[in-house]
């Protein structure tokens, strides 16, 4: 079989697989890819060894498919990952107004616009300018990270304290969400120090040692919340058109591309943080731009970060997908770059075409099955995956992460604070005092 056909089949298979997986709330593509990496490594050296031309396009397709199709549970099931946190509120508004399908398609269109932006705008310029900017910014990342952390914490606003006589009770009412946000950030940062310095997870699966914590911080609290508080979803309308025009698309690409671009390029900064920064920077008021911009941002964040690994002269490893691929393969030259760009374009097209039938299918499922059961099923899959890959100790870490991840849910603060798990230890390490903290914690 020719190389072209092998790549085409692999990328299509990866895209279809991840598109189906993306409909399951709470399940992250990186969890599935981690299990695949284990399988590929186990087969290495045997007669069933998986060639690079099979797994590389397939995994590219998985990342693209998931970043596009993850919109479905984010809008229709209200179970976003942290990078989609801003789509929940406007997206759920659409859902409760019976326009969940339209909201999903607007976000997906953002993803498609993001694919065009990446392949036609970023990709030709990246090999020329990104290596230079990387060289310039290399020594400055630590203070950039501290500014981002400060912005995340300071930009959270009080949600109470408006009524009643002045005094400590009113002060506490105003500050409790803010305090709990800071507590969440610090507790998750502490968890990050422990896991990154002296992880209890077995060294044999150390490449997945952060996964149980992420599952606990983000996926399990949302599944639990849905199981406890799922509202009845009103009858949904399937439309043949969506309420956007060229102006909305361009402004969405501007805000989403900026947010996703920041998240994919800066270390440790995720889509949610990038979206927060870009949202404030571009100050777009229109709800449609907000939803579509998140589609662009999510696509540029996940796929762009993966693409950076293949940019000739840069080879920057950003994001979980790139780190996992790096254990299997190191890109060389422009041919790999073209291969990945081609795979991104093909996978984006396939996944966009799949979103309408899969969104309809999900709406049919919601109509037919209890919303809570879907979340329960997702929770079981997540727990089994954590247990299978990292064992009981991984499950314990996920449990601790769940305790921390429930704090923002229960106190109404930002879930983004849970990203302290990476932001705090990495910023401290980059600034040169991480070791002092780990020594104080008796970890080193």
């Amino acid at each position, binding site marked *: 079989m020719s190389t072209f056909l092998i790549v085409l089949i692999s990328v299509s298979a990866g895209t279809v697989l991840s598109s189906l997986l993306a409909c399951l709330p709470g399940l992250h593509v990186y969890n599935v890819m981690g299990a695949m990496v284990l399988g590929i490594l186990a087969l290495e050296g045997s007669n069933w060894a998986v060639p690079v031309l099979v797994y590389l396009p397939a995994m590219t397709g998985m990342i693209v498919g998931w970043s596009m199709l993850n919109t479905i549970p984010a809008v229709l099931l209200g179970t976003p990952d942290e990078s989609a946190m801003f789509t929940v509120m406007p997206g759920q508004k659409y859902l409760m107004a019976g326009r969940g399908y339209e909201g999903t398609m607007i976000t997906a269109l953002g993803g498609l616009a993001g694919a065009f932006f990446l392949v036609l705008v970023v990709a030709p310029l990246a090999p020329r300018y990104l290596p230079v900017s990387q060289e310039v910014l290399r020594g400055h990342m630590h203070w950039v990270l501290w500014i981002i952390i400060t912005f995340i914490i300071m930009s959270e606003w009080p949600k109470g304290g408006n009524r009643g006589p002045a005094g400590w009770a009113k002060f506490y009412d105003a500050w409790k969400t803010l305090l709990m946000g800071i507590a969440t950030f610090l*507790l998750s940062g502490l*968890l990050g120090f422990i896991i990154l310095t*002296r992880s*209890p997870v077995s*060294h044999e699966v*150390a490449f997945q040692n*952060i996964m149980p914590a992420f599952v606990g911080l983000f996926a399990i609290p949302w599944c639990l919340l849905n199981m406890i508080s799922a509202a009845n979803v009103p009858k949904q309308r399937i439309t043949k058109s969506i309420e956007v025009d060229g102006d909305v698309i361009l402004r969405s690409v501007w805000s989403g591309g900026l947010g996703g671009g920041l998240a994919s390029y800066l270390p440790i900064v995720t889509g949610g943080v990038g979206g927060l920064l870009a949202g404030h920077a571009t100050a777009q008021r229109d709800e449609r731009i907000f939803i579509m911009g998140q589609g662009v941002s999510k696509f540029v964040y996940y796929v762009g970060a993966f693409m950076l690994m293949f940019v000739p002269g840069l080879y920057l490893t950003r994001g979980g997908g790139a780190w996992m691929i790096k254990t299997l393969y190191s890109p060389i030259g422009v041919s790999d770059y073209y291969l990945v760009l081609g795979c991104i374009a093909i996978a984006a097209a396939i996944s966009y075409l799949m979103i309408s039938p899969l969104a309809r299918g999900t709406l049919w499922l919601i109509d037919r099955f209890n919303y809570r059961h879907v979340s329960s099923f997702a929770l079981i899959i997540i727990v089994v995956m954590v247990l299978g890959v990292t064992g009981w100790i991984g499950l314990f870490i996920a449990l601790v992460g769940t*305790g921390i991840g429930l704090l923002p849910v*229960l106190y109404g603060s930002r879930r983004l604070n849970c990203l302290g798990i990476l932001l705090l230890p990495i910023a401290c390490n980059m600034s040169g005092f991480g070791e002092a903290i780990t020594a104080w914690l008796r*970890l080193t």
Partner: protein
Amino acid sequence: MTDIQQVLPGHETQSQEMNCPSCHRYVGAVTRCPYCKAKVPKRISLMATRWAAILLATIGLFLLWLMAIHREIPVVMLGDIQPTMNFGQIRVVGQVLNDARTFRNGSMGFNVTDGTGSIMVFVSPRQALELNSRNLVPKAGDSINFAGGLNVSDQDMSMRLLSVSELKLTRAPVQDVELSAIHESMVGSGILVAGKVVDFSMPAPGSRRPYALKISDDTTERTITFWEAEYEQLANPDDLPGAYIRARVSVATYRNEIQLTLSSGADLEILSAPPEKPVRIQTPAQRAAETHRQQARPRDFSRGRSPEARGVAVSSVTTANKGQTLRVRGRVESVRAPQEGSRQPFVVTLADDQATLRVVYWSNVNDVIEVKPTPGAMFELEGLVEVYEDTPQLKVESGYRVRPVGDDDEAPAPSGEVPIADITAADQGQVRTLRGTLGAPRSLGKGTAYELKDDSGSIDLILWDSIVPADVRAGLEEGAEVVATGEVGLYQGQLQLKASPGRSVAPAR
């Protein structure tokens, strides 16, 4: 509403939990009915769930922290490292390959081998300062035991030192050498030299030249070079011109000239009087090492004592050999030192593909062994076969009869030279020795690839910079006929031979 249910006026829609589930009377906030004593279930306060989440998070974190600080980091052989161990924390027990180098940002790096592979270890600037202050900067030949974080990609791997407090270093004995006695066979080793400073030149500002300290003894002059980082560690650099000094230096070559390099300012001592002539031999182990270094030919184990015993494989040793003296070659699986104060022997487990053999020797024997057995390394040990718990055991009676074999010079290829065409995908992960002619070199960034050809076919020979010494790589050129030993791998569907650590590629004789 039933007749017996009592509801306060205006509270008709109140929650059911205000009424007793048994007698249906209004009971208010109490949890037990004052009339019929039935239990009245109440809703759980959301505040309680919030505190439960905080409790779960803090208790869980505390337990995780306790577990993390008490967890023993597992010892992993470098040859067993898998890509899935990326970001993992492991412990390595091995030998330092080269003096630690200090980089411009103050961080440090050194290479370690444990007999199954080698790895570059990075030390942060803060840890480097601590290593310097505790005089724990690793030097070539030192035995080291440390924990670190792994960074593995499909082409190379490195480690970050986790903690200085968990680093254990046993210094290799350093030979005190006269300047005139320094020769090329010492390249790569550390020595102690002494003399009078006859010239001290500093690099011009902006220059990339090193500091040069020329010293002289009665007959010879040599130059010790070092960099800014080492200069700043010197106690009294202004006192150097004209002073008598003693320094622990590494012997290296630069442009085919022998060069002495100082890897730490703490290794240089200013003497108050002219140094005495080196006391050449101090211990039996040093004497053995000295003899070994001075002999160009492979080491003669007999040393005039007794003829070398018959060499056998581990699996060939049986209880029937009881009372015989045998020389056994195998890979060291484990080494157990006796507990302090006990009268136990050292126990080494030697293995080949089919069997293991328990080898024992006492501390006085261990003191004489020049290169101590380390797990994963190939060793040859000679001793008397005994029977212990119905299984054969080798009792080594002389430390001179314990020697490493393998990566460097004396170990034969595991299965002899094979034609290149005989290498197939089934050989992946196996060590093979090939003879062939080198094609044009191709840069791989952190290594070099050559096409290795013989009459039967060709294969890519990969030499990673971190694994194969620079002088070995420098000696290779297009058209040269070489014998190369390494592990067979598969990359993008093509077979390749990844050169083993050490002098695994040599010109064919």
